[in-house]
């Protein structure tokens, strides 16, 4: 029996697509080469954050955060869902001056944000070092545990009849059909949400692995209350607003208090293909950067380091939409460090495009053809 849609990849994005499509009444098969939520999704921080590096990014993150918030009451305990908010930290007066317009930007678009002065910052987070200028608090940002969230989305889709096949590798795709070891299978719509394998399946798709390090600590409940991010994170992750090229190697302070009471420390970015070794020098830079904001971190015990590869596009916006001229083939990938955050909006947009309707999100900024070889 022919499924209406085949989703390739059971990471957070594929899971969200399966959830959105099945909600519209489509029959969905999800094909995953390893196991659900085990790829890049399992390396991610799970920070659900509204980001303002561009209007299109803001729109997608805001819509997605709204959806995660709507779903929060249904999430099982395994998702470790928390609403603690994000605290963007301004190290000095120059950074603080840039915060007021940010707060306005968020508020004008209906997202709660507040300006904190030095004293308010210190009260909010006692372990930050004295002398920081202040910051912006976004209280409705959230945190969750990505592998569990992906599984939950797949279970929800499964309750509507979607099926998941793990250890099932897709070797080729064409509009409305996919090839596995069992041969070609026809379907209505193919959604390629396989992260980096998307590039193997769709020649001409340009996404680059942007490697990041994370270090998790022993339990230290209360050490931090918000997800703490330095304002320089935006430059590290998304380049500057003037469109200059993404930096090849950078670190930015980013600390997350997990539901277990462990502290998860990021972030680093480098382009080294798929070298999965730990770059001690860069990890050092990342830790030193963090110590500049939170010296007390020095005494916490680090348990483990891991790395992940963010699927990165040249303009830092994901690729969501039709691939090629013929109907029946879509792609949803390239989310860099916002895959968990924007999965719901991605799924919703894919469902809109598959059904040929205009929904809450304008698809144009995320149109995949901008990342095809031969296009600028």
């Amino acid at each position, binding site marked *: 029996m022919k499924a209406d849609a085949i989703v390739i990849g059971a990471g957070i994005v594929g899971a969200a697509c399966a959830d959105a499509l099945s909600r519209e009444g489509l029959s969905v098969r999800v094909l995953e080469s390893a196991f659900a939520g085990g790829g890049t999704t399992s390396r991610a921080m799970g920070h659900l954050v509204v980001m303002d590096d561009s209007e299109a990014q803001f729109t997608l993150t805001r819509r997605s955060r709204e959806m995660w918030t709507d779903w929060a009451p249904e999430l099982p305990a*395994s998702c470790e869902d928390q609403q603690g908010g994000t605290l963007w930290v301004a190290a000095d007066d120059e950074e603080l001056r840039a915060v007021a317009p940010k707060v306005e930007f968020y508020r004008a678009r209906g997202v709660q944000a507040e300006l904190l002065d030095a004293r308010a910052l210190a009260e909010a987070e006692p372990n930050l070092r004295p002398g920081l200028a202040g910051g912006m608090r976004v209280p409705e940002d959230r945190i969750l545990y990505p*592998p569990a969230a992906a599984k939950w989305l797949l279970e929800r889709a499964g309750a509507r009849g979607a099926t998941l096949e793990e250890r099932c590798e897709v070797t080729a795709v064409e509009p409305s059909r996919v090839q596995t070891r069992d041969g070609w299978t026809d379907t209505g719509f193919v959604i390629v949400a396989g992260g980096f394998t998307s590039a193997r399946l769709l020649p001409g798709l340009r996404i680059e692995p942007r490697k990041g390090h994370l*270090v998790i600590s*022993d339990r230290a409940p209360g050490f931090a209350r918000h997800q703490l991010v330095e304002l320089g994170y935006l430059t590290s992750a998304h380049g500057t607003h003037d469109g200059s090229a993404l930096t090849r190697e950078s670190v930015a302070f980013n600390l997350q208090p997990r539901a277990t009471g462990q502290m998860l420390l990021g972030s680093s970015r480098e382009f080294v293909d798929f070298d999965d*070794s730990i770059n*001690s020098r860069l990890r050092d830079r990342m830790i*030193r950067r963090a*110590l500049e904001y939170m010296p007390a971190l020095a*005494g916490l015990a680090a*348990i483990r380091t891991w790395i992940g590869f963010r699927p990165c596009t040249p303009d830092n916006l994901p690729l969501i939409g039709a691939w090629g001229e013929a109907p029946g083939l879509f792609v949803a990938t390239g989310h860099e460090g916002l895959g968990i955050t924007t999965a719901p909006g991605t799924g919703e947009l894919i469902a809109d495009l598959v059904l040929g309707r205009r929904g809450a999100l304008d698809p144009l900024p995320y149109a995949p053809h901008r990342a095809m070889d031969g296009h600028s």
Partner: protein
Amino acid sequence: MRASVTAAAVRCDIAVIGAGPAGLAAATRAAEAGKAVHVLDEGLGPGGQIWRPARVASNNSAAEDWLARFRRSGAMLHHGAAVFEMHRLGAAWMIVAECGGSRLEVTAPQVILAVGARERFLPFPGWTLPGVLGNGGAQALVKQGWNVEGKRVVVAGSGPLLLPVAATLAKAGARVAVVAEQAPMSALRRLAPALALRPGKLWEAAGYRRAFTRCGARYRTGWWVERAIGSNTVAEVVLTDGRRRETLSCDLLCVSYGLVPNLELPRSIGVASRAGYVAVDDGQRTDVAGIFVAGEPCGIAGVDAALAEGQIAGLAAAGRPVEGSLRRARRRGRSLGAAMEAAFSLRPELLRPPEPTTIVCRCEDVTAGEIDPAWSARQAKLSCRAGMGPCQGRVCGPALENLFGFAPDTVRSPLQPVAFSTLLTSDSEN
């Protein structure tokens, strides 16, 4: 709060990780051959697990001889040094350890990993009660000065370790009620030919039996622990042979099932393993340039094999010829080790998942019922946190492997929990 500020960095010709028999032998031979040798060991003193320094005079002359020879050899020992990371530095290797809260870096072109083995724990109801320890664990603590006089002890599990542990406890004044070995007598009898080639072993075993039999203990084969019972500490243990049950009161239950090789460090630098052990060539070299492995990680085979392999590795790393007698000793030690492993192999009843409420991962309190046998170890870790805690799967990993069939996942730096500040290299300021 003590934060790590001081750091030390040394360079040498050959670094040895582990100061048990294999490491001491390797370092001694390499240093005697004129090489600059540094040894890192996380214990309180040299000797590893099997030659633990004890407050009472040791009657182990082999240990004393080797320790004395090691001290004369010129090799440097960093004790209390827990290696948490190792990586290539140009043509050499850098070993990073935490030593008393500070960072220690040892750089050498050649490294001998003599990291030994640890006990295999299999979960059963009540195994997390205070007073339930591994056999090696109990022996280690007694040698560290734990006073067990008058304590009623049950020794259980499997392996040649049970007898010497029972003897140590009896000598320390504990009342050993029983030694319960899960292997059937028929399997142990098959050891007799192998032991006959090594009469010293039989003599040793007889000595152990005498020691604890004096206090009324019995060595029972084909019996194992079904559960431990107690509220704050263990009070009773239920033993079974599959048909009958027997409940004994006790203050201390020592239970462990043989040894598993410590493969975390070799794996973390890409050393290949085969059938659960490190693959080495005739000179104890691995497939990773500059890396040698000796002793238990190459196969659980005991002291004699460890001494032979350690010497071979030390000589090979020092570029010296290896005596034929060492190769023969290695062969004999390995074949005895293989016979021991076969004789003490775990019976099917022990290889089934325990009751669903039994804790499997102690760091994260994950119970057997939360684990899906169809998962891989990585899936288990991501789905229910088994293996995500500070021990990084060293305790639950072998259990997950034996009971659920999961292959162990890779371990990442730091191999031990260390302060964030200890992760920082001394010279990177940019």
